[in-house]
């Protein structure tokens, strides 16, 4: 789990901190924390446009929150997507007592179908980005070396922005080969559509460019 919104630890609403991350890996996730009462988990309410509501306690441990200074880190929430009917259409996340929305809320499903790239035997597919999410997600696979987990780098000009190894599991999708452990999440400094000059995705071992992405590429 990423500490998305961790910078919002510095931007409280009603004295509280929190970030609604929306749907990740078929779970609805986020975190919230009251610095004045750090030992007390807060309750949030998830709501969909169709009227389904569900209240949950943010009392799950997240190491990223602990690392970001959110007390002992026991302030996350994460429930299966299936628990909230119609959540795929969008979810709002509110503090249960005040009814105010957490930062990051509402979440809406990404649009579009992403894009595929090919460089030699390497097949790279990129997902459509979540609105406002400064990350690229996708799947990369070398047809000649099925067990190879590619190391990817994001580069802007001469600067390397981030790197990762594509070993994450995701349910196999159409056109994606291998054993399923070729997914990746690549952090960007800002959402792609806000990045001037675009970003280049590179195979870190060979130095080969796999894709170049401009603001409107996905």
């Amino acid at each position, binding site marked *: 789990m990423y500490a998305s919104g961790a910078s919002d630890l510095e931007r409280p609403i009603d004295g509280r901190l929190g970030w609604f991350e929306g749907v990740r890996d*078929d779970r609805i996730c986020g975190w919230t924390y009251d610095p004045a009462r750090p030992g007390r988990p807060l309750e949030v309410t998830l709501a969909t446009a169709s009227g389904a*509501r569900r*209240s*949950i306690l943010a*009392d799950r441990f997240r190491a990223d929150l602990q690392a970001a200074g959110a007390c002992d880190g026991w302030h996350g929430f994460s429930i*299966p997507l299936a*628990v909230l009917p119609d959540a795929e259409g969008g979810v709002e996340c509110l503090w249960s007592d005040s009814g105010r929305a957490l930062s990051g809320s509402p979440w809406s499903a990404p649009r579009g179908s992403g894009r595929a790239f090919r460089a030699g035997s390497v097949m790279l597919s990129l997902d459509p980005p979540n609105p406002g999410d400064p990350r690229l997600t996708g799947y990369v696979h070398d047809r000649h070396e099925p067990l190879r987990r590619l190391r990817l780098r994001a580069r802007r000009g001469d600067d390397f922005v981030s790197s990762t*190894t594509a*070993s994450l599991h995701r349910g196999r999708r159409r056109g994606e080969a291998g054993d399923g*452990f070729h997914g990746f999440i690549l952090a960007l400094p800002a959402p792609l559509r806000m990045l001037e000059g675009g970003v280049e995705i590179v195979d870190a071992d060979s130095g080969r460019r796999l894709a170049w992405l401009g603001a409107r590429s996905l």
Partner: protein
Amino acid sequence: MTSKAALVLPVGADEWRAANLAAGFARVAEDLAGGGFEVEVFALPGAATELPARVTTLAWSDPPILAGPAAAHLSLSLRAGHQLWRRLAANPPDIVLAPLGGGILQPALMSRDLGESLGDTAMVLWGEAGAARRMELGDIEPVGVEAVIAEAMESAARRLADATARPDASADRPGEIRLAFPFRPSPRTASRGGRTQEIVCVGPASGRHGADAFLTVIERLGHEGVLTGRTVTFLGPWREGTAGLGKAMLGRRARDWRFAFTQVDESRPGKVLDHLRRPGVLAVFPGAAADDEVILADCLSAGVASVVASHHPMASWVSGAASIIDPDLADLADHFDSVVAQRPPAFETPDWPEVFESAIAARRSSPVVRTRQTRSASLCITHRDRPDALAAALASRGGTAGLTTIVVDTGSETATLDALGALESDDVRIIQGSPGARQPWARNLAAEHAGGDILIFLDDDNLFIDDGLARLVAAFEDPRIDIVVSTLSLFDGAPGQGLPAADLVFMGEAGWAGLLYNGFGDANFAIRRDRFAEIGCFADDDVAAFDWVFFAKAQARGLTIAVLQKPAIAYRRDLFGRDAKWRKRDLEGPRRHVLRAYEIGQTSKIIAALGQCLSLPFVE
């Protein structure tokens, strides 16, 4: 005379366990058939694996089986267990072997314990890890009431079974017998020396199978460079879309690995063995309670180089055929440099026919504790403005000796009262209660006027079927039993007329599941009079589910709650009016009282957490 044995395969979603038991029970069946037994292997509805030949698949029979308000798949083991009881009671075998996990033998054991059926049938459990152990080891995610239902049923099954068979059973555990699946020699892979090219962790992603210990050690070995040029394979079904050990976690941890890895979803023992027989493979069996006896035995028999953790249930049996190492697998790398198939295993070969014959003989010779002393009984009925239904209920009593009936009327119209007068007799007494009195109050009043040793409670719109009243009373011949409930035959029209819509089954002793929903029984039940007084009668405050609260108090005081599997009561179900009864839909009020009965204390935080974990319906 030929003895009949029934072997029962598990239900549920654990395909690794199901495949292991299907293969193991198939071998047991072969041995038993060779020993002169007539054997039938049953797969219950919901079996999670490809079934071996000659397995009888039990279809759901009519009427459909329901099990309370929880989603049907969460109470699968209870419903499947009742289906199994239907089949066994109709054609009783001499002995049954069924898995402990899920407690699917509980209904059959309950029925035998009550003297209702299967009196001459020995019942043995296959002593795999139960729900509590599986949850403790991270094998079951706490996302539903399934595990607490299973735990309650397993607990009762363990208590009522004749024996529990385990490969690692020891003499100091009463009720256990040491048994493993029959060993079958395999053609041996040629012994070879040389370098391990592939290290295979055999089994699913769970602590029970040692996957966490394996991950820890290979990450250390990866840092030390020992895995360079080798592949690590996770062979077995790994969970998707779940927190904790699973594919998502494996992928995240692998971002830092500098060695090759892969994961292969495979559960079928034959296919798993094919993978392990490949050159350069070292098979690692790290689990403490691993459900892999068949695969391990085949693997060793075929000469696959293997490492087995010392806490594995088969460790003492495979010593000499495999390398036994500590549970933390710290010395795993010592076995990389020379992949040499070790000598064939020298398994103890249990004589299953002999063990089964002994169990049958022991069952037949064990004394059945019954008191033949005639007991008086009082039937307590609460009534208001349903004289025809009441007349039908009274007519359904049959000829139970020593029975008196107390009817408490709670404000019927004058015309009804005239009709009631006609129903009064020497053994039917009608008492006028306060008009509009709540049902628990009226029941307590009836009990106060009842003189019988046994109290039977019945709603006036329900009735007894198939000598139900006599069967409820007869169950108390067993002095250990305090309360008897029954499966209900549900009718959407007049009870007892036509075919029932469904059978609603209960657990009786519901354990911690009783904290979450009323799995104990229904308000129509029988109880010893002195026990009723001990518990403090029915709670007379404004509680919707007073029966649930009553059973919770009984459970908390350690009373024995038994279940008649054959329906004793025809129950009028108000399917269409249920949504209008808001009190039936409000689970928060009754649950507060139930919690008090369980004497849990400060509970709000616990319940909030449970509600989140268990996805219980949220009532706004």
